[in-house]
Structures are given as structure tokens and as C-alpha cells.
């Protein structure tokens, strides 16, 4: 349930996204910081190695105090170094001592090449720049540890020289970063630092990043919740409105404050749908109301007739009258129920018999001719001008359409008028036209004449035996044949009913 909720899913996705982005960002910052710090450390070590190198070669680089310090002071510094031998000889230095010349004995080596000499104080001076701490060492080309700082790891092996490289090289060992360089003569200088402070700083940074990340995540999720609440509120309103509508409040609509927003447009579409639904519902409701009214009224007549007749003794003449009235009423009900049933079947799509190729002209002629006596009786001229009009359909139902239209025309045309029935095939359509010179139909009634139980002049129509469904049935039949029925009329001039049905090919 909770997982199905869009809001919770949004939260979940937002959470994933935020965690991903924050974790990526944090890792990157952490890495960058690590790399930068290590880079700074390397620079520092390189600087120290360069200074040491210079000192070992006897030069006086900027780090060794400049050329000024090459003279007297260097002797003093050398003595100073001699005075603190433990500083220089620790660890492996002791073992190396017999193998190499004494460190305090600068001079020529056995090979005759000049021994690496470290001017007094140059070593310390070389290490004085940059951040404090770190260790350093100097080896002679024979591999004898000449000098080293007191601080630093107990084990300080001489680095391996790759070929005759005089480049600065780095090595990582036991949490130490060391930079070393071999001079052209083969002496080796080394400066190193523990990586511990850097690692500590990195850990601290990681914790800080995690803390900030958690805060941002919480903030983001809170903001996301607020946003999704805001964004989903209209959806919730739509749901509530739709629920009320489905509960029966059909005229209710979704209130839209922002008709151009996505949700507003959705609400607009829904409202339009509800409009159509309500209209359909109202139509259906009116139809059932009308049907109920039309069926209940004759039933009421029957009841009143019978009860009234039975309430006292009547003459045979009175009984006959009652029975005749009852019969007429019952027949009216039968016509009505037949019509309703036919309409219901047409609505469901099974109101037609098997569709067969037929000539609409023939059907129209036969049905119209059958009504000729009625026209003659009323003093009307009935013109039947039919030509071949091949359609595919139910001859009986199409005949019913013709009968309904022609009977209607005869009904509403005063004596001396004309009723014309024509059929013609033109292009893809066959048309049946029933034209009269009758009383016509009022303009405001025209759109409704095919409606069920249309009520123009209802009282008179019913008195003449019309159920108010004849034209509605005509339309249903024509539409079941994929055709269209239309009417044009001018009050006092006459009406023209046109039926168009697609030309039928033999099925």
C-alpha cells in the first residue's frame, strides 16, 4: 500500500538519487583532497631532497643558506655534527660503520673519488623549510649511512638505484612517503614523512563529508516531501471530486485554479468527460422517465376505467364503451412496448435481420403504394418516383422507415397537399426523400424531432396514436445501416426527410 503510493515512491527515488549524488560528490572531494595533500607532501619532500642534494654536493643552494655559508660557518657546523654522533648513527648505521669511512672524516674514498661531504649545518638547514617534522638521510655511494635525522623510522634501508638515474624518486612503505635522489657521484639523499597525519586528516574529512551529506539528505527528503505534497494535492482533489461524482453527485466538477498546468489540463479533460457522462445520464434518465410516463398513463386509464365501471351497475352500452376504451388503451400500450423493445434491440445492435442486397427503390414504392388509400382518403396527392437504389440491409426494417416517414407526411399534410417519395442512387449513397407540403416543423423543434418521446405537440400526437418513438426508431434503423437521416422544414411550407444509406454490394 505504502509502496504503491506515488508520493512514497517519489520519496524513495529521491532518496536513492540524493544518496547516489552525495556519495559520489563526497568520494570525489575526499579523493581530490587526498591527491592534493599527497601532492603537497611530495612537493615538500622534493624540495627537501633538492636542498639535501645540494648540501651533499657541497654547493650552497638557497636552502643551505647561500654561498655565504660555504666558508667558515661550514667548518663550525661540521664540528657541531661531530659532537652529536648518536644522531647520525642509529640502526643500521652502526653496522655500516666499519664498512665505510667515518662520517666525520670527510676526504677521499678508497676509490679516490671525492667522498660526499656535508657541510656543517647544511643538513639541518636543508630540512628547515616547509612544515616541521619528517625524516631525512644521506648515504655515501658505497651505501654507508652518512647522516640521518633522529626522528623517523628505526629501519631506514637505502633505496635501490634504478640504473644510473639521478631523478627524484618516491617510495611508499609502512605508512611513510619517502623521496630520494642519487647524485651523479652515487650518493643518495632521502627525505620522508609519515603519511599518518594525512590519513588522519582524510578520515576527519570523510566524517565531515558524511555529516554534511546526511544533513543535505535529510533536507532534500524533507523538501521532496513538501514538494510532492504540493504537487500531488491537485491529484488528491481530483480523486475526491471524482469520488463524489461517482457517488452520484453528477453535476459536481473538479475545481481548476490553474487550467494550463498539467493537472489543470487533466482536470479539464476529466470535466469534459463528466459533462458528456452527465448529459448521457440525463438523456437516459429522461428516456426512462418518459417511457415510465408513457407506460403508466395508459395503465392508469385501464385501472380507472375498470374500477369505475365496476363501482356500480351499468347498462350494457356503458360496459361496451368501457371495454372499447380499455381495448384501445391496451393496444396503445402494445404499440409502445413493441417500439421500446425494438429500440432497445437496435441500441444493442441486434435489431436488424440478416442484411441482404435489396433495391431501396422497390421497397419504398411498395410501402408508399400501400399507404395510397390513406392519402386518397385524406385528399392528398401521393407521388412515388423511385429509381433503382441498391443497398444492403433488412428490407422489413427499411420498409418500416418508409412507412413511418410517409405516414407522418400524410398525417401532417392538410387536404389538397402533396406527398412525394423519391429514391435515387448517386455516387456512394442511395437516398430516400419524403417531401410533403404540410404544416412543417418549428425551427426550435427541428433538432429534436428524432429524439425519443420528443414532446412537440405531444397531446395531439398521442391522441392520434403516436408513441413519440416513430422517428427515433427510423433514425436507429438508418444508423444501423450506416446511414444518416436528416430533416429540413419550413413551418407552413412543408418538411423534407432525407435518408442516405451507402450503396450496398452483394454480401
Amino acid at each position, binding site marked *: 500500500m505504502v509502496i504503491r503510493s506515488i508520493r512514497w515512491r517519489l520519496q524513495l527515488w529521491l532518496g536513492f538519487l540524493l544518496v547516489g549524488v552525495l556519495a559520489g560528490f563526497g568520494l570525489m572531494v575526499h579523493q581530490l583532497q587526498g591527491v592534493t595533500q599527497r601532492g603537497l607532501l611530495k612537493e615538500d619532500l622534493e624540495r627537501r631532497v633538492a636542498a639535501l642534494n645540494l648540501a651533499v654536493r657541497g654547493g650552497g643552494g638557497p636552502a643551505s643558506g647561500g654561498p655565504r655559508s660555504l666558508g667558515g660557518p661550514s667548518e663550525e657546523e661540521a664540528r657541531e655534527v661531530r659532537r652529536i654522533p648518536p644522531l647520525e648513527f642509529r640502526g643500521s648505521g652502526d653496522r655500516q660503520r666499519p664498512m665505510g669511512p667515518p662520517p666525520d672524516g670527510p676526504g677521499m674514498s678508497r676509490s679516490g673519488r671525492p667522498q660526499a661531504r656535508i657541510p656543517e649545518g647544511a643538513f639541518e638547514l636543508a630540512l628547515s623549510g616547509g612544515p616541521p617534522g619528517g625524516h631525512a638521510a644521506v648515504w655515501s655511494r658505497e651505501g654507508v649511512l652518512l647522516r640521518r635525522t633522529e626522528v623517523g623510522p628505526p629501519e631506514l634501508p637505502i633505496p635501490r638505484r634504478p640504473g644510473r638515474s639521478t631523478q627524484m624518486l618516491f617510495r611508499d612503505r609502512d605508512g611513510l612517503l619517502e623521496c630520494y635522489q642519487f647524485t651523479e657521484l652515487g650518493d643518495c639523499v632521502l627525505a620522508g614523512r609519515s603519511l599518518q597525519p594525512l590519513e588522519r586528516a582524510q578520515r576527519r574529512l570523510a566524517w565531515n563529508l558524511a555529516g554534511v551529506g546526511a544533513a543535505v539528505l535529510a533536507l532534500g527528503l524533507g523538501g521532496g516531501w513538501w514538494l510532492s505534497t504540493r504537487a500531488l494535492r491537485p491529484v488528491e482533489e481530483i480523486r475526491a471530486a471524482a469520488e463524489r461524482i461517482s457517488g452520484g453527485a453528477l453535476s459536481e466538477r473538479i475545481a481548476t485554479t490553474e487550467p494550463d498546468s498539467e493537472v489543470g489540463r487533466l482536470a479539464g479533460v476529466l470535466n469534459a468527460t463528466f459533462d458528456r457522462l452527465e448529459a448521457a445520464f440525463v438523456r437516459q434518465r429522461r428516456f426512462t422517465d418518459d417511457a415510465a*410516463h408513457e407506460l403508466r398513463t395508459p395503465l392508469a386509464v385501464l385501472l*380507472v376505467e375498470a374500477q369505475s365501471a365496476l363501482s356500480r351497475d351499468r347498462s350494457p352500452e356503458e360496459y361496451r364503451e368501457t371495454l372499447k376504451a380499455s381495448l384501445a388503451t391496451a393496444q396503445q400500450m402494445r404499440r409502445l412496448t413493441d417500439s421500446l423493445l425494438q429500440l432497445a434491440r437496435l441500441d444493442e445492435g441486434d435489431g436488424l435481420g440478416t442484411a441482404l442486397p435489396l433495391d431501396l427503390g422497390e421497397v419504398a414504392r411498395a410501402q408508399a403504394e400501400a399507404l395510397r388509400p390513406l392519402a386518397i382518403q385524406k385528399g392528398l396527392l401521393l407521388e412515388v418516383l423511385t429509381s433503382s437504389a441498391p443497398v444492403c440491409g433488412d428490407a422489413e426494417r427499411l420498409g418500416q422507415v418508409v412507412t413511418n416517414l410517409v405516414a407522418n407526411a400524410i398525417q401532417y399534410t392538410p387536404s389538397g397537399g402533396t406527398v412525394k417519395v423519391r429514391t435515387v442512387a448517386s455516387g456512394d449513397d442511395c437516398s430516400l426523400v419524403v417531401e410533403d407540403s404540410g404544416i412543417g416543423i418549428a425551427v426550435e423543434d427541428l433538432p429534436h424531432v428524432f429524439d425519443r418521446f420528443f414532446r412537440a405537440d*405531444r397531446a395531439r400526437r398521442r391522441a392520434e396514436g403516436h408513441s413519440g418513438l416513430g422517428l427515433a426508431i427510423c433514425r436507429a434503423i438508418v444508423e444501423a445501416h450506416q446511414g444518416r437521416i436528416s430533416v429540413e422544414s419550413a413551418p407552413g411550407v412543408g418538411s423534407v426527410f432525407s435518408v442516405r444509406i451507402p450503396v450496398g454490394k452483394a454480401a
Partner: protein
Amino acid sequence: MRILLIEDEDRLRTTLAKALREEGYAVDVAEDGVEGLHKAGQNDYNVVLLDVMLPGRDGWTVLRELRKTKATPVLMLTALDAASDRVRGLDGGADDYLGKPFDLDELLARVRALIRRAAGTARPDIELGDVRVDTRARSVTRAGVPVVLTAREYSILEYLALHRREVVTRTELFEHLFDENDDSLSNLLDVHVFNIRKKLGHDLIVTRRGLGYCIER
């Protein structure tokens, strides 16, 4: 008692009017809302029977318009008998509501009840001394013995009994007891009253000369 029947269905209107007349009511008919509203406004009917689905102006409109001027009891007749329609009818000022198809006896009983209520009495029996008028059976007894009255005579007696201790003018009697098609002459009223007196005693109905009739008991 005079009734206006507003109903567009010819057969029902004719049959119902006939049945009501046989019950001794004077019945006017109207085929649509416009005619009905006109007649209901012109005359003082005891009851108006009003169909809801009418051409012209529907029953709701007729009722609303009528209620602006008259308090005539209205019984609505309609095929719409959903509860909401009944509520609408009663709230709109109808006094009673009957769905189609209805039972003729029920309709007549409701008409009688409406007439009684309008006269301010809820009881179906009216006792006038030793004379007893039963409006349900439309029968009269005197000291327990049934007395046979013609429909007209009964109508006059019932109207006077429902307006006992009031002076009822001859015009009022005409208006309520004869419908628009009756051409009874005024002296015919005297004949009916004379016959009632003969059957139920001379002191039951008192003539107020120049004013009308009155039952003083």
C-alpha cells in the same frame, strides 16, 4: 365539491372526470398547464388534481404559479414517483402526491381527505344532532336510520356540513357544486335544499334570507 383536473392524456382525463362526477363532484378539466393555471386562478376549487408532465407549462410550474395566489389543495398525479420527485412535489406546495398508475379508490379517498382537511376537520364523520354524515361512504343516517340522498343533495349537505355554523352563500354553493358545463338554474338549488329538509328535518338547514344557507347545529 368542485374539482379541477389538469391532465393532458385524453383518455385518462375523460375517464377520471367521469368517475369523479359519478362520485358527485363537479369537475372542470384542463388539457395543459396554461389552461389549468388559468382555470385554477379564476375559480375556488376544493381540490386541484395536477399531472406533472404537461405540455406547455409542466406541473411544477403550474404549482409554483398557483401558490402565489391561491392555497387550493393540490394533489399531484404523476408517473414520476421517485422519492426525490415526491419530496419536490410536496415541498413545492402540493398537499398530496399520487403516482401513476393509481387505484381509483385511493384517489377518491385522498380527495376526500384533502377536502376534509381544508374544511378544518380531520374526522370522516360529521354529526349534526341526530343526523350523521359519513364522508367516506357518502351516506347519511338520521337517528341511526339510513337516508337515501341524490348525489347533488348529498353534495349540498356535505358542503354545508363542512362549513357548519357559517353562512354559505348561494353563489359559493354554485361555485363549488356545479362545474363549468352545468347550467342548473338557481331555483334548482332551492329544490335540492327543500328535498334535503324533507328527508332530514326542516330545522337542519336554516335559510338566511338574502345571504344564504347555514347549518347551525
